[in-house]
């Protein structure tokens, strides 16, 4: 039974507890034992790293050092920002030993950083450590008919030098997992566009326009719902939708689900475990599509690209 250190981050215990709860269900089914990092602290995003670099490194470093006390060799992180901060810090520390010493000296009572614990986002953990095949095996209630736009947001795969995971511009890991669940990921171009999270409070206008385009493109792609793996993405796209509609005169009604919610559903957990009440945009209409037949004409066409095309006989 694989073991995993769990770093929930502030949102998982607040706005995005449906993420947290479904995550735990999913992990149970996948046979992964999650151990929440004891006495974890704020990762510092995003206020710390705009103020002082040292603090922005020291905060995550403390978590990393704490994680090294546990036997598990991987720490899974729910929130994309936390993940970004932790992974950035880890990379910085591992590549600049002298800097590591300096920062470490500020949290000396916690112990010395050894760099033995790997840091992964939950998405990365599902994709690399579990794998779509293993996930598919656990599916008891395939989500056939559900068309989803996979939205990765800015931090899960970027910057490449830090994350070292999937493609920074057109990632596919979540799409693969969705396919494994039986759902159909749509051709969605705005997978990694900015949703404006950092302006969520300071300048909502920007959020409205940025998130607006994402929603629009999601609808363009024919998706019934948007899937995310980051609490901030979720809250922005879900919570802001009414305002967006009001501003742009649109009526999107696209629910925004966590990857773990759909996994939980496919693994046979009842709808109520998904905590539908936590959503601004009701998720039931979208889930009602499960079971429909999908028509996708472009699939039937042959790819035009020279390289893979092989000969055909009349």
């Amino acid at each position, binding site marked *: 039974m694989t073991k995993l250190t769990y770093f929930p981050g502030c949102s998982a215990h607040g706005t995005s507890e449906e993420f947290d709860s479904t995550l735990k269900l999913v992990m149970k089914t996948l046979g992964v034992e999650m151990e929440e990092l004891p006495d974890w602290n704020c990762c510092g995003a995003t206020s710390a790293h705009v103020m002082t670099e040292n603090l922005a490194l020291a905060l995550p470093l403390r978590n990393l050092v704490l994680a090294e006390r546990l036997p598990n060799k991987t720490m899974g992180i729910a929130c994309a920002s936390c993940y970004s901060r932790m992974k950035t810090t880890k990379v910085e520390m591992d590549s600049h030993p002298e800097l590591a010493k300096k920062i470490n000296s500020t949290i000396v009572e916690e112990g010395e950083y050894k760099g033995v614990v790997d840091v992964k986002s939950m998405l990365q953990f599902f994709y690399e450590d579990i794998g779509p095949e293993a996930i598919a095996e656990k599916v008891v209630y395939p989500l056939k008919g559900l068309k989803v736009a996979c939205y990765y947001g800015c931090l899960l795969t970027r910057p490449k030098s830090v994350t070292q995971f999937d493609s*920074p511009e*057109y990632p596919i890991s979540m799409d693969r997992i969705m396919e494994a669940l039986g759902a159909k990921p749509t*051709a969605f171009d705005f997978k990694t566009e900015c949703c404006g999270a950092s302006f969520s409070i300071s300048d909502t206008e920007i959020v409205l326009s940025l998130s607006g385009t994402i929603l629009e493109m999601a609808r*363009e792609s024919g998706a019934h719902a948007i899937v995310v793996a980051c609490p901030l993405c979720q809250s922005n796209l879900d919570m802001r939708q009414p305002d967006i509609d009001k501003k742009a005169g649109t009526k999107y009604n696209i629910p925004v689900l966590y990857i773990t919610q759909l996994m939980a559903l496919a693994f046979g957990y009842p709808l109520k475990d998904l905590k539908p009440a936590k959503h601004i945009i009701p998720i039931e209409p979208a889930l009602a599509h499960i079971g429909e037949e999908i028509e996708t004409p472009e699939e039937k066409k042959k790819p*035009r690209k020279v390289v893979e*095309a092989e000969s055909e*006989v009349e």
Partner: protein
Amino acid sequence: MARVGVFVCFCGANIADFVDVPAVTEEAKKIKEVKYAIEYKYMCSDPGQQMIRDAIVQHRLTSVVVAACSPRMHEKTFRKALSDAGMNPYLLEVANIREHSSWVHQKDKKAATEKASDLIRMAVAKSIANEQLHEISVPVTKRALVIGGGIAGIQAALDIADARIPVVLVEKSPSIGGRMAQLDETFPTLDCSQCILTPKMVDVASHPFIELLPYSEVMELDGYVGNYKAKIKRKASYVNFDTCTGCGACWQKCPVKVPNEFNMGIDKRKAIYSPFPQAVPNKPVIDAEHCTMLLKGKCGICAKVCEKGSIDYTMQDEIVEREIGAVVVATGYDLWDPSPYEEYGVGRYKDIITSLEFERMVSANGPTGGVPVRPSDGKVPKRVVFIKCVGSRDEAKGIEYCSKICCMYTAKHAILLHHKVHDSHAYIFYMDIRAAGKGYEEFVKRAQVETGATYLRGRVSKIYKKGENLMVRGEDAQLGQVVEVEADLVVLATAIYPYKDNPDLARLLGISYDKYGYLSEAHPKLRPVETAKAGIYLAGCTQAPKDIPDTVAQASAAAAKVCGLFAGDTLKKDPMISTVNTEFCTGCQNCVTVCPYQAIVTEEIPLGHGSKEMRIVAKVNEGVCQGCGSCVAICRSMAIDLAGFTDMQIINEIVSI
């Protein structure tokens, strides 16, 4: 007994002012081998040289020492003087008492004078050990090998052949013509590529001095300048070119369809095919990877329909050998694969194409009959976005260098688009416009004025699909804001990149290449056509990105080099090269290891006189040896020595003072 003559030069005041020349001459006279010593104002002048010539005869000198300026200055002059006097020119030694004494010790005449005397002593000692050397003449095979049948290869081959020198032109595809044959019209004059290229192709085919080997590849190149031997593989075409008339019945009836390389895969060709209508030679070949007859033994239609019975499914690759004297490498360029630009959706959207695909579309003989169409739905695009520097000048995702031609052909594309689709509009994202060349800047202006194309300075950050069309989002750096252009078609000006097998070719030819795979010239400025290996020259994009005029110019330059090389019946070479004393040679072959030119080979000689047993010894190929002496210094048994710089000579110099 050696009889050395010493001739000390005043070099006007240059030497005399700081070195006591008469004293030096007196010193020289004291050396026992020196039979004659004299000073003169200008030894390099005619009377000066005359003194040397006379002295050689009068005093029966066995070697001559001239104490004057640096040997790098006048060694040749004085050598000539010696040979004029009937003396072997290599019995000359020059003592450099100007650069090495008078000019650098101007404050201390006494020391300068002593040093000058020492330098002369050394030169005398060395000259005693000098041997008579004779210029090496290497025979030349006056036949050139041109690798690559693009415009560069064609031009080089024609120029060489017109000088009545036989040429073997090797092309890997079924027809010559190369990239230029794929182009529609060419900048800056917009004359049609076919119209200017095809006549040259025909000339090649019909030229009495050119042997054209299409569908062939060079496998091996042995030997050295003037005396190469090339092994060339003629790939099995399964068509007998001698009887085939190129009627075309076979490829009309062939049932197998294959993406057409010549049209960048936009349409299909048959499994038996001739790449394009104007192909030279215009004979089909069977593509063994796709022909069902060759793969599964079923079909055989082409054989049935061929009246001449030219189809031969049993044909095998054959290796032909050619003796050649020089090589011109003109393997051209490939396109850089833009797939790293994921944000552009390369490979995901059919309506994003490369500039060469666009070129084929607008080409009159192209798959779409000269009209650009959207691959997705065949509609004629109205709004076309051209993105320049895709790969070029991009250290993050592509390559550092500038591909040189994209600015020009993109301007051309704007014009062509305008000609073919009058109500179309071109948007061009660019970093800089690099239009250095005769008539180039004017051409770009013309494109801007004539077509009203929108030039946007800035990089494209994203392309995404909106309905049927593509949204191109980029920055307009001049307005300092983000712009989004809705496009029916996006054309990427992908970077020029060398063929991936260039390094293999380089290794096979024994020449060097850079980190991208471009073949390296001997000197970036002064020897841009030669390679470091004598007798091998470069032409066209195999060396670096070039446009057609530059390519043709370099091709002709390479041809001129070849003709120059073949001017005499033999190649003259400096005799200062290594020689092996087989008596001492142990055959350990360390010299073979360190020789930078692979100039040393081994041979077997009898162990002793008339003995049956053989032993291995080293053998210097005097045609290849450049005389660096690496082998001499590492030879433990002193079996190798370097003429002109023998151990004896150098040691003499050392012990003479």
